[in-house]
C-alpha cells in the first residue's frame, strides 16, 4: 500500500515544492480557502476520526471546534519538540515530506481563523529549522502563504521557533511559556489553550504528525480515512521502532496492525537481534508502562490501537515502540528512565522535583549493587506516592516504568539486591 504520511518513500523529491505540487500538493489548502467555510473544514476532520498523534490521542476536529470565537487573534502552534526517548517520526516527516506537514498546518490555521502559526522545534533541530525556513519561503514565493490567499480575504504567515533542550517544552502549556520567552514550565489548567493559549489568546496546538494527516483527509475524504485503522483509532500511524530489533526505524501501518507484524515483519523490524525472544515492550517511549511479553504469542498478536493496547496495561502514546529482549535487565531500564526524568523535571512542583530526585538516588543504589530489598520496596513506594499528585503528566510518566517494572519483573530486582 502506498504511504499516506511517509510519502517520500514512494515519491522521491517530494520535498521539492514543484514535485509536491505535481502530486496534488496544496490542492486541499486551496480548495479549503476558496470553497469551504472554516466549520466545514473542521467537520471533515471531525468525521475522519483523526486523533492527535502527540501522545494523548485527543480527537483533533473536536479540539479545533473548542477555539473561542469571542476572543481574537487566534494562533496555531505545531508541536515539533519531539523529545520522548524512542520517538523520531516528526523529524523524518519534516525533513523528507515537509510540505505535507506545512500544508496541514496551513489548513488548520484557516479552520480556526489564525493568521499566524508557529512551529516550535526542539533546539537540537537547528539544521531542520533552517531547512523548514527555506520551505516556508518557497511557499511564500508560490503564493501559498502571505496576504489574500487564493484571491480570498485570508492571510497566513508561518514562523519557526527553536527551543533549547528541555523535554518539558513538549508539554503544550510549557511550550507556550517557552514561546513567550519564559522558562518552560507548565501552566495550571484549566483554562486550556483553545480559550487561553499563546499570549493569552485562543490557540490550537497539535503534533507534527497530526497536521501531516490533514491534507490527505481533505483531499480524499473522511470516509476514505476511516476505512483504514480500527473503529477506535482511525487511519494510519507512524511507529518509531527502536531497541533490540534487527531493523529499527519509522514504519507506517494502519492502526490495528499487531506488535508481531511491526517487530517481526520483513518490511519492518525483521525480528530480534541474535534471534533472541521479546521480553518486554515499551509502546510509548520512556514514559511507558512495561508490557510483559516473555515470548507470549497472545501479547505479540495484540492489535495496536489506543483502546486495545490499554488492555495490556499500557498506553500507546506516541507509538514509540522500544523493544527489550531477554538479555535486558529491567532494573537497568528503570535506572535509565529515572535518570531521564530526573534530568527533565522542570522543578515547578515539589512532588515531581523531590520524587524524581529520590527515585534516582534509590535506583542508583540498587543498580550499583549496594541496594537491599527494602530499597526496592521504597522505590516502589515513592513512585506510587507521586502518582496523581503532580502538576503535569511528566511527574506521572516518571513513575510508569518504575511501578510496572518492579511489579511485573520482580525477579530482575531480586537478583540485583543483597540477600
Amino acid at each position, binding site marked *: 500500500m502506498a504511504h499516506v504520511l511517509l510519502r517520500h518513500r514512494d515519491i522521491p523529491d517530494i520535498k521539492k515544492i514543484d514535485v509536491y505540487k505535481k502530486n496534488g500538493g496544496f490542492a486541499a489548502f486551496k480548495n479549503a480557502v476558496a470553497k469551504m467555510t472554516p466549520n466545514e473544514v473542521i467537520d471533515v476532520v471531525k468525521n475522519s476520526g483523526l486523533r492527535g498523534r502527540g501522545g494523548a490521542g485527543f480527537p483533533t476536529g473536536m479540539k479545533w471546534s473548542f477555539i473561542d470565537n469571542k476572543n481574537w487573534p487566534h494562533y496555531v502552534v505545531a508541536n515539533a519538540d519531539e523529545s520522548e526517548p524512542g*520517538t523520531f517520526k516528526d523529524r523524518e516527516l519534516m525533513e523528507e515530506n515537509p510540505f505535507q506537514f506545512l500544508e496541514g498546518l496551513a489548513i488548520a490555521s484557516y479552520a480556526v481563523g489564525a493568521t499566524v502559526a508557529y512551529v516550535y522545534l526542539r533546539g537540537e533541530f537547528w*539544521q531542520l529549522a533552517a531547512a523548514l525556513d527555506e520551505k516556508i519561503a518557497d511557499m511564500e514565493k508560490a503564493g501559498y502563504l502571505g496576504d489574500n490567499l487564493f484571491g480570498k480575504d485570508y492571510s497566513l504567515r508561518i514562523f519557526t*521557533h*527553536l527551543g*533549547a533542550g528541555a523535554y518539558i517544552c513538549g508539554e503544550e502549556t510549557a511550550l507556550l511559556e517557552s514561546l513567550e*520567552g519564559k522558562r518552560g514550565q507548565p501552566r495550571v489548567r484549566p483554562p486550556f489553550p483553545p480559550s487561553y493559549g499563546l499570549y493569552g489568546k485562543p490557540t490550537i496546538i497539535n503534533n507534527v504528525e497530526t497536521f501531516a494527516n490533514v491534507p490527505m483527509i481533505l483531499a480524499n475524504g473522511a470516509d476514505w480515512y476511516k476505512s483504514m485503522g480500527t473503529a477506535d483509532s482511525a487511519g494510519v500511524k507512524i511507529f518509531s521502532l527502536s*531497541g533490540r530489533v534487527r531493523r529499527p526505524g519509522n514504519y507506517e501501518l494502519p492502526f490495528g496492525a499487531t506488535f508481531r507484524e511491526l517487530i517481526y515483519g520483513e518490511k519492518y523490524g525483521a525480528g530480534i537481534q541474535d534471534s533472541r525472544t521479546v521480553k518486554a515492550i515499551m509502546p510509548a517511549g*520512556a514514559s511507558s508502562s512495561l508490557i510483559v511479553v516473555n515470548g507470549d504469542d497472545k501479547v505479540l498478536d495484540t492489535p495496536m490501537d489506543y483502546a486495545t493496547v490499554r488492555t495490556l496495561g499500557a498506553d500507546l502514546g506516541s507509538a514509540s515502540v522500544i523493544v*527489550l529482549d531477554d538479555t535486558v535487565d529491567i532494573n537497568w531500564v528503570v535506572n535509565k528512565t529515572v535518570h531521564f526524568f530526573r534530568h*527533565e523535571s522542570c522543578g515547578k512542583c515539589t512532588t515531581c522535583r523531590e520524587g524524581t530526585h529520590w527515585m534516582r538516588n534509590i535506583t542508583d543504589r540498587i543498580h550499583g549493587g549496594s541496594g537491599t530489598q527494602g530499597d526496592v520496596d521504597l522505590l516502589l513506594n515513592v513512585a506510587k506516592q507521586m502518582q496523581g499528585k503532580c502538576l503535569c503528566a511528566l511527574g506521572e510518566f516518571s513513575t510508569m516504568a518504575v511501578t510496572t517494572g518492579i511489579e511485573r519483573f520482580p525477579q530482575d530486582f531480586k537478583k540485583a539486591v543483597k540477600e
Partner: protein
Amino acid sequence: MSLEKKHSKEIKQILAKYPSEFKRSAVMPLLHLVQREDGYITKEAMQDIARLLDITETEVASIVGFYTLYHDKQAGKYRMQVCTDLPCALRGADEFMQKLCGNLGIKVGETSEDGTVTLEEVTCLAACDKAPMFQVQGPDGIKYYENMNVDKTVELIETLKHARGEVK
C-alpha cells in the same frame, strides 16, 4: 560593538516573527545568536539582550539556566554530546561512550587537551534508530552524526581540530 550594531539584520528578522508588544519571545533566538558567536553566553550578551527586549538581566539569566543547550561557561571549541538514553543504550551507546573516553583519554564532562572537544552525555535526540550517535554543538550551530563508531569519531575530531568555525 553592541549586539544591535553587529547583527542588526538578523535581529530585525527575529523580532519580526513576534507581535511587537511581545518581543520578549525573541529571547531564545537571540541567545542562540550570541552563543553561536561566542561559543557560550557572556554576561555582556545577557545585558545586551535584556536591554533590547526590556526585561531584566536576571530574567535572561534564568532562561539561560533553565535550558540545557545554553552555556554560560566556556568549554572546548566543540561540545560533542553523545546520546546514552535508553533506546540508544540498547544499541551500544554506553560501550561507544566508554571506548571513546578511553581513546581520547578523558572522562565525560572533560575537554580534550588541545581544547577541541568537550565530551558530554545527553538525553534522547530523536535519532534512536541510528545509534551510536551524537551531536556537535559549535560555532556554527548544531550538527548530528549518526551510525557512528570510534574510528569515524576520532577522524571527525581530527577534522574539527583544524576547522575554523564551520562544522564539516
